[in-house]
């Protein structure tokens, strides 16, 4: 095809055209899936070629499983999910599923800290939580890292709320995904920190 594929903005129309094996619909779908896959693998070597491989694989899978799309109105999102998971699988199975540069947030750290958790009763569990809080306060991680761990587990704050807090503290747009990635990375570090390992061991089951 020398001309660009027709735009399919309506999911139902797009789905119906694919059901009728319309080449224009599939060409448009390939263009969309290539962009989806490229967004997932953009930081990889030969990213465009990899994205196109993923898109072609996704295109065939979608063709084969079109009947499994129960909601034609959600066809676009369904197709995106198939392509994105093929791209994620490609990275995972090549041991290249790492944090994307976009997920790294280099901001000036604020000194603000979350308040100590309010524990209702002085039970053994409450005492353990207090000990963990104290250990996290002295752990060798940044203030922001401390906040995202304590915020989740001791203050029960959702990531949207923590992202809003960090955005306010740093003056930089912080996404909930940044919060999640930061917490996962720091929990991985904390697992190796001997004082915390010892404390958890003392606590037993």
């Amino acid at each position, binding site marked *: *095809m020398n001309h660009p594929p027709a735009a399919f903005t309506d999911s139902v129309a797009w789905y119906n055209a694919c059901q009728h*094996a319309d*080449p224009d619909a*599939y*060409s448009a779908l*390939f*263009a969309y899936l*290539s*962009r*989806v896959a*490229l*967004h*997932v693998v*953009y930081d990889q070597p030969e990213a*465009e070629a990899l994205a196109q*491989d*993923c898109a*072609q*694989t996704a*295109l*065939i899978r979608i*063709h084969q*499983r079109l009947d499994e799309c129960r909601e034609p109105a959600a066809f676009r999102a369904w197709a995106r*999910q198939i392509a994105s*998971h*093929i791209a*994620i*699988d490609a990275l*995972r*199975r*090549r041991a290249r*599923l*790492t944090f994307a540069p*976009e*997920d790294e947030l280099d901001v000036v750290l604020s000194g603000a800290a979350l308040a100590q958790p309010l524990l*209702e*009763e002085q*039970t053994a*569990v409450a005492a*353990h939580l207090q000990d*963990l809080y104290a250990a996290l306060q002295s752990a060798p991680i940044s203030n922001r890292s401390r906040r995202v761990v304590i915020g*989740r*587990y001791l203050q*029960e704050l*959702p*990531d*949207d709320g923590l992202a809003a807090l960090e955005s306010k503290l740093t003056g930089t747009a912080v*996404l909930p*995904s940044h919060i*999640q*990635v930061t*917490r*996962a*990375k720091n*929990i*991985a570090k*904390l*697992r190796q920190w001997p004082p*915390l390992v010892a404390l*958890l061991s003392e606590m037993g089951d």
Partner: protein
Amino acid sequence: MTDETVRYRQLKEVLQVTSDGPACDAVLGQLDEYVAAQLNGRDLFPLFPHIATHLDGCLTCAAAYGRLYRLALADQNDTLPVLANPPQPDLSFLSPTPAAASLVDRLRTAVEKLDNGWRLRLSADLLPLLHPQVVPLRASSAEDRYAELLLALEPDQSLQTDIPFKLLVYRDAESAADCLVEVWVQPHGRAWPHLAGFTVTLQLPSHTHQQTTNAWGAAAFERIPINQLGNLVITATE
């Protein structure tokens, strides 16, 4: 159980328990729903406590989540990247080819239902029909060794046959005359983790190999001579 007890156990779990493959597969399968709920402003921790906890304890899944979250956001905001050199897709799959029809016919005679399983007999004239339509992405950490897919037979190939297993054959880069044969037993209505324990037998003129499937229904056989694939008989029994 009090809230404090729940929080304590969850925190202790993420600080102590590392994730494994099957748990990751389950979480990755639900990440779209998780991200969609998050973009809709839902509080995720009560809705998906296992996923939320797993993401805190698993760097790989957290990385996948980060990419999928930003993808969903970019798609929502219509800011997906544009390819510098957009190619045309291969749409040959839209038209059933004589080869595809031929493959269906040949598979009908090659697959045999047994009392307690199934048997597939490969033949020299069937092999060319199993060459992959697209070059797939190798699904293994040993990708360098088994990068080249030689044959692929998947139940979802729109073959209109009831084949209860998937077959993937990769060339062994360390021994170019040999290959890795992967058999994935996938009977209708069964899924992980209830696919363990099938006995898969590979009969070759020179040898017979046998393995038991894991929870994913997979059995892998290394060092299979490529020149014997045309006489390979695969049996999967329960």
